Structure formats: structure tokens, C-alpha cells
């Protein structure tokens, strides 16, 4: 695999630093994607694409200059490096010798999705359609979608980094709409990972079953209650709570601009002593995992909360240098057309030993939020909001009626301090995280977690 020969990378970096700057980098990428969907029992919209290009940046003091180009032809790479350097007015900077790029570690791929015939991908969708339609007469509409991506990445910088990565992701999702009289409800389920076709080929019907079960359950849902109450949050995608309420506030760009409620809080006891959490871009085959981040730093498990104390922020190269520390492998970007910024990889609460039933039994009256449709946070204030896609009332310590239309609002610092129980059933789910106009795959996860009190916004 070679996208940019090291000698050419060196030349590009020399051009980029010709008029000053302390740091230059070239990020080259070759990406293929394919997706196909099914709606109304028909396969539609198969399509694929191929994009290839590079981004070049130069850092001078606190300023970053960036340009990108489609294709990897030598003259185009030199031209973009020259154009980026135009913004600078200093002395020529030096470039360390560059070796062939190394790939620190990969993730096991048994079957490359690109080697699988498109017809087999379509078959997966038909199978999901049948399974979902078989789940009950009230199932009205089924949509299923399959997507795969393959990215070849190389990163070279003037400090001598020469790194490469091969990234394969697959994802299979099913959406079911159930209808009874005037009631219409939606259920969704997705499985995805940094993995080969084997991930979606194993029991794909289970994804359809889950989506159908959610939609059918909601048909009997009552309006969600309003007000403050204890909340038990489900495992897997429930971890989007940690992602939004805590994770974004630990991204070092927000921290350094005092745009995070977690700024200046390293070492502080922010949660009960049994609360430990990680951001782990190294976790085998997880959705948010890669071999290296998009600046060439090997991914790693980063402890963010240890026994309830805040122990680390999430760094890319630029922000790490500013804080006199090392990158935690969180410099990520959407493509060669984007600048890397600090981003989460797979963020999750570590498991403890309670059971989900214990957590629920400990609640008098409250809400069991099994899964969310999504969420959003304002890192500067920590105020967050989540839409509950599957939820139930908890009455006298027992799960009772399903609820619809529930939204959780709260503040990250308060919610974290309010975690009063963690179960042992850790699971990591697939999410897409948007920041600064860049959407990237991010794994969200946790075991079942109980929070003393959150505001539930319902319509009842």
C-alpha cells in the first residue's frame, strides 16, 4: 500500500514549510464506499463511490493553515503545499527524514466487504425485511440499509511521523414502522463495527427482530411523564449520555478555550468512587476504533474517569503541545478535506457488578430509558438533551408501561455526580458524532446506569 512515497511526502512538507512554520503534515486518503437499501420490500439505490486526495497543513504559533486537493498527483500535492505556505512570512522550516509508513496495529477483518458480491448484501436486506414483517400484523413499513466503507490512510509530518492505516467498516440498520388505528410508531436497530462482512452476516435477523419489537411495544405506550425523577439508562446506545454529557466537555479544544464545564477540573472528584470511564480508540473491532488517529498517533485506551476522579482530557497533537502533554490519539477528521480536531473514539463507562434488575428495583417511581434516538450538548454549559426512543415507567421498583415522547434534559456535571449505580453488562453501539461540520463514526457504550434525578420532559 502506498499512496504517497516517503520521498514525495518529504518534498511536499519542505514546500509547505518554505516560508516558515514549526510543523507541517500531509494526510493522504483513498476511500471507497458502497451502500444499498430496501424499502417497501424492494431493493433500491445501490451506489458506490471512490474519492482520493490529500490535505496539507502548516502550523505557525497558534495559527493553522490548511489546503486540500483531489487526487494524489505530485504536481497537485506540491501546488497545494505552495499555496498553504503563501500565508506565512518566516524562515524556512526543517523536515525530519521520513521512512516508509508503518501501521501500528490493525483490527481483524475476516471477509473484506468489497470482496462480497452486491447480491449477497441485498439478500441480507431481504432477510431483515421478512423477519421484521413476520414480527406482527401491525408492522406497516420496513426499511433496511447496508453500508460499507474502506479507507486507506497515510500521514507524514515534519517531526518524522510516517504512519498508515487500513480501515474497514460495515453497518446494517433496520427501521420498522408499526401502525394500529391512529397510532404510528417507529423502531430502529443498528449493528456496526470496524469489522468485515462477518459482523453483519451473523444472525442479521436479530437486528430486524429488535427494530420490530421496539415499534410494536411503542404502540401501547402512554404519554411520558414530566418533571424530575430517577432514571435508569439502558446499556449500549444509552452511553450516548456519557458521550454528550461528559465526553464533549473533555475534548481539549473546548477545554483550552474555557468552553467546557470540565476546564480546570482534572483531579476533582466528579462522581461516586465506583465510576470509571474510558475513551478507547484501540478497542478491538469497535465502531469508533482505528489503528492510528488522523494525525498518525496510535489509538489507545485513555482513562478519563478513575474511581470518580477526572484524570484526562482528550488530545490531538496541537492541543497536547499547548498543554505540554502527549496526544491521546484523538485527532480525527471526516476526510482529507477537513482539519483534524479532538474527537472521541469509543467512549464508555467501565462495568461494575450490579445487575440491571438491582438498579431498577432500587427506584421507587421513575423512568427506564432503554435507548435514545440521539442527543446534543452545549459543552460550554454542560446542558444536554436526549430523545428517549424506547422507555418505560418504573413504578414501585418494577418496569411497567412503555412511554413515548420522553426527552431527558440536564447538566453534565450534575448528571455525572448523580450516577448512583452501574451494572455489569457493558455494550458498545454505533453512533455518528457531528462537530464543526464534520460527521465521524463514534462508538458509545455503557452498562446499565442509574442516575438519581434527571428532568423528564413529556407531554402527559
Amino acid at each position, binding site marked *: 500500500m502506498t499512496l504517497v512515497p516517503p520521498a514525495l511526502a518529504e518534498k511536499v512538507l519542505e514546500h509547505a514549510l518554505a516560508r516558515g512554520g514549526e510543523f507541517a503534515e500531509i494526510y493522504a486518503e483513498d476511500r471507497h464506499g*458502497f451502500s444499498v437499501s430496501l*424499502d417497501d420490500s*424492494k*431493493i*433500491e439505490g*445501490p*451506489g*458506490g463511490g*471512490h*474519492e482520493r486526495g490529500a490535505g496539507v497543513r502548516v502550523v505557525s504559533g*497558534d*495559527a*493553522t*493553515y*490548511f*489546503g*486540500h486537493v*483531489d*487526487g494524489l498527483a505530485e504536481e497537485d500535492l506540491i501546488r497545494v503545499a505552495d499555496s498553504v505556505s503563501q*500565508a506565512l512570512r518566516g524562515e524556512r522550516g526543517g523536515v525530519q527524514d521520513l521512512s516508509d509508513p508503518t501501521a501500528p496495529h490493525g483490527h481483524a477483518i475476516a471477509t473484506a466487504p468489497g470482496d462480497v458480491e*452486491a*447480491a449477497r448484501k*441485498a439478500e441480507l436486506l431481504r432477510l431483515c425485511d421478512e423477519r421484521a414483517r413476520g414480527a406482527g400484523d401491525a408492522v*406497516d*413499513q420496513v426499511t433496511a440499509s447496508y453500508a460499507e466503507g474502506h479507507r486507506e490512510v497515510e500521514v507524514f509530518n515534519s517531526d518524522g511521523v510516517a504512519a498508515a492505516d487500513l480501515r474497514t467498516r460495515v453497518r446494517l440498520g433496520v427501521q420498522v414502522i408499526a*401502525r394500529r388505528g391512529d*397510532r*404510528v*410508531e*417507529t423502531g430502529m436497530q443498528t449493528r456496526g463495527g470496524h469489522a468485515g462482512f462477518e459482523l453483519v452476516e451473523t444472525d442479521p435477523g436479530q437486528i430486524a427482530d429488535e427494530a420490530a419489537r421496539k415499534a410494536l411495544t411503542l404502540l401501547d405506550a402512554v404519554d411520558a411523564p*414530566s*418533571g*424530575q425523577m430517577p432514571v435508569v439508562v439502558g446499556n449500549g446506545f444509552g452511553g450516548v449520555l456519557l458521550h454528550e454529557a461528559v465526553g464533549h466537555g473533555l475534548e481539549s479544544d473546548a477545554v483550552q*478555550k*474555557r468552553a467546557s*464545564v470540565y476546564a480546570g477540573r482534572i483531579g476533582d472528584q466528579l462522581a461516586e468512587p465506583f465510576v470509571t470511564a474510558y475513551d478507547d480508540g484501540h478497542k478491538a473491532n469497535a465502531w469508533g476504533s482505528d489503528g492510528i488517529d488522523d494525525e498518525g498517533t496510535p489509538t489507545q485506551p485513555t482513562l478519563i474517569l478513575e474511581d470518580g476522579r477526572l484524570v484526562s482530557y482528550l488530545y490531538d497533537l496541537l492541543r497536547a503541545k499547548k498543554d505540554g502533554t502527549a496526544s491521546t490519539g484523538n485527532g480525527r477528521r471526516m476526510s482529507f*478535506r477537513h*482539519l483534524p480536531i479532538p474527537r472521541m473514539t469509543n467512549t464508555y463507562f467501565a462495568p461494575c457488578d450490579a445487575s440491571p434488575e438491582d438498579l431498577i428495583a432500587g427506584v421507587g417511581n421513575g423512568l427506564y430509558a432503554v435507548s*435514545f*434516538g*440521539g442527543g*446534543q*450538548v452545549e459543552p*460550554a*454549559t454542560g*446542558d*444536554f*438533551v436526549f*430523545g428517549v*426512543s424506547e422507555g418505560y415507567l418504573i413504578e414501585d421498583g418494577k418496569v411497567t408501561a412503555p412511554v*413515548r*415522547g*420522553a*426527552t431527558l*434534559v*440536564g447538566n453534565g456535571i450534575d448528571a455525572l455526580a448523580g450516577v448512583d449505580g452501574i451494572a455489569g453488562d457493558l455494550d458498545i453501539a454505533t453512533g455518528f458524532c457531528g462537530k464543526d461540520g464534520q460527521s465521524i463514526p463514534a462508538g458509545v457504550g455503557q452498562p446499565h446506569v442509574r442516575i438519581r434525578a434527571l*428532568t423528564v*420532559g*413529556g*407531554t402527559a
Partner: protein
Amino acid sequence: MGIDTAASTAVELALAQGAGSADAFGVEGEDLTVRVYEGEVESLSEAGARGLGVRVFIDGRTALAYGTDLTEPGIGALARGAVEAAQVSDPDEYAGLPERSGAADAPPISSPELARWDTERKIDLAKAVERAARERDGISQVEDTIYADSQTRVALANSTGFRGEYEQTAAYAYAYAFAGEGAELMTGLGVGAGRDPAALDPEAIGGEAAERALALRGATKPATRRCPVVLDTFVAASFAGLIGGTLSADAVQRGRSLFAGREGEEIASKAVALVDDGLHPDGPATAPFDGEGSPRRRTPLIENGVLASFLWDARTARKGGRETTGSASRSYSSKPSVGASNLVIEPGTDTLEDLCAAAGNGVLVTHVTGLHSGVNPVSGTLSVGATGRLIENGQLGAPVREMTIASDLVSMLKSVRAVGSQGRWVPFGGSVMAAPLLIESMSVSGS
């Protein structure tokens, strides 16, 4: 080769590969983004990008291939890829190109002024935006200030012989300011957009960010209640975008819109008029044709509270026995999908102060979060996070945060009591010309 030639070549090669019909959509452009912080450039990105998407139809089977390699072999690979991918598709009797392609007589959408601004001057504009926000008493931080512009060329070719091209310029700026510190910190966003940097007023953009943050200082969680709610321009725009999405004929035909089968019915109060205007002189999305070569036009969606029309593209119109409304959105890497162009909420006669006075006791909402997860387009249920001010005896009162507002889309639309007079283009919910809305009653959840 240029995108116009690339698009025509792609169509020819797709036909040669066995496609029954085909179209190709090419985009190329230059864009610049400046981010400033504490009076200095934090990052400057300047680059060109291009790409081409080829769509083929073979006996009702359709597929797309896209890429960035616009050499003849590159385009050949796209055409082959699309024809090959179409084999797995099931036939769809309604799939196909529009019966009549064409370009509307669009107002000017490319400003020559953009080229007259050099990078230094744009950086100065960004710095002026930041300064205008930072200067205000009580502003503790301006986290982010962005100026960005783009010059984009679009070319579309199809096998019925249509060849269309246009060039578009755009410029926008925003600032994100903080008032207060620690747990008391509140945020505010100021925005401005136009076809060139001369259309941006840095004082107004920075000032708006500061004012919005300052207005929320000391915000607390309100008591749970049911009361009148005023949505400000930003929030009204987000909701308009959402409603626009549910009016897509594709969502309707796929059983994914609560408005399915309700054309001609009263779905909103008489105060509500919503128009999709693809040719509005100031609309950011204005263009001579849509993503599949149908002319853009003006389509009333809600008139006097009555659902007047859905948004149609060629396929949904064929299936529904209608005419396209020129509502195919497209990027080079995606197949066309049905969506709004510029949404216009027809303004009323009341100022924001009038709306608050009419509300009596309620809440002014200036920011919402979690719209994509908090609104169900099928059932219409909605519950979103909100920030704003209390309205007490018709006057703006204490700021409030960490609350949700909840209702369902139809109840909300039917209880719009008045639309404000101050219409404005805002980049939320797509391209929306929005005005504030007074809603008779919504659930507000706090403590």
C-alpha cells in the same frame, strides 16, 4: 476535464455501457474558511474540490456511482460501476428522468463582489465580528468566530439532451459568545449570511452573539407548566425546516409523514403560510434547476392553514400523478432526494414585543436542542430541550434553561396565534426565511 464536459461524457459513457437513460451531476468549487480567536487567525483553510455523480436507469433499475477522478478513464469507471450496481436493484416502475427538463429564469445568484475581496480583508471582517462580541460588557469569552465563503459551479447533463450549468456564491459569518463563568455561564450565537462578504455586517453579527448570551445570564430551571410559547426567529426556522421535511412527497408515499393523505385539510391555524420558493432573489438555495434538471419554482405548501401541496420530484410526481415542484436536492455523492429549497414563513404584522404582550404569561424560546432526536416525523410527537426567557404580564422576565418544550406538530401548528413581522434568512433547518411565532399552548417541563 471541466465538470460540464465531464457530466456530458459520463452520460454518453453510461449509455454506451448499457444504461437505458442516465444523468450526471458535477460540482466544483473553491472555498475559504477563517477561524479567529482573541484577535488572531486560529486557522485558515483555502481549497478547491470537485466531484461527479452518475445515475443510471436500466428497465426501472437504478443506481449511482460517484467519484473525484474526472479523467476519461475515471469517468468510464463511474459509468461501469453504476451500470453494474443497477443489477442488484429491483425494478421501480416510477423511476426515471423528468419528462421535461429545463432551467428557470433565476435571479442573480453569483456576486462579482466576492472576487474583489482578498484574504486579508476577509480575515479583518472575521476579526471585526469577534471584536464586536468581545467588546460588550459582561462577555467573558468568544469561543469561536468564523468567516466562510464559497464559489460553486454546478453542471447537470442527462440523456434527454438537457445540459445545464450555474455558478453560485455564498458568504457567511458567525460568532459564539459566552456571558458569565463556571456554572453561571450562558452562550449566544450571532449569524449573518449573503452572497458576498459585503452583505455581512460584523457589528450586527458579533453584537447578536453578545446580546443573546447576555440575555440568558442567571438562567434557572423554570417550574413545569402549560403556557403560551413564543418561538424566536432562530427557533421558528428550525421548526419550519422540520415541517418542510415532513412535506416531502417521498416521506409521504413511504408512510413516513404524519401529513400523508391530508392535502386540502386544515393542518395549521389561519395565521400560518409556508412557501417553498426556489427562485427567491435572496434565497441561499435559489438556482435555475434542481438536482435532476427540473426548473426551480415557487410552491405554496401551507396557505391560510390549509395543506396546499407536498414537495415533489420526478419519481414521486409520477407515482402520485402530479407535477414535480422542482424539489430534488442532490450532491455529487448522493442520489437526488426530495427536499425543500428555500422555505419562507410569510411574516405577519406583530413585532416580537407585540407577540410577548399577547402571550401574557409564558416563555420566549431562543434556542432549542435535540431536534433530530426529539421530534417523531411519523407520529408528530415532539419534545426538545430549550433555553429562553420567561414572559411575565406581557414583558420579558427572568432567563430560563434546562427545560423542554413538548407538543405534537399538528397541535402546535393549529395553535399558532400570530406570526411576527421581523422576517429574516437564517441558516437553521436548511435555508429558511423565518419570523417569530406565538403558540397558544405547549408543555414546558423544568423542575
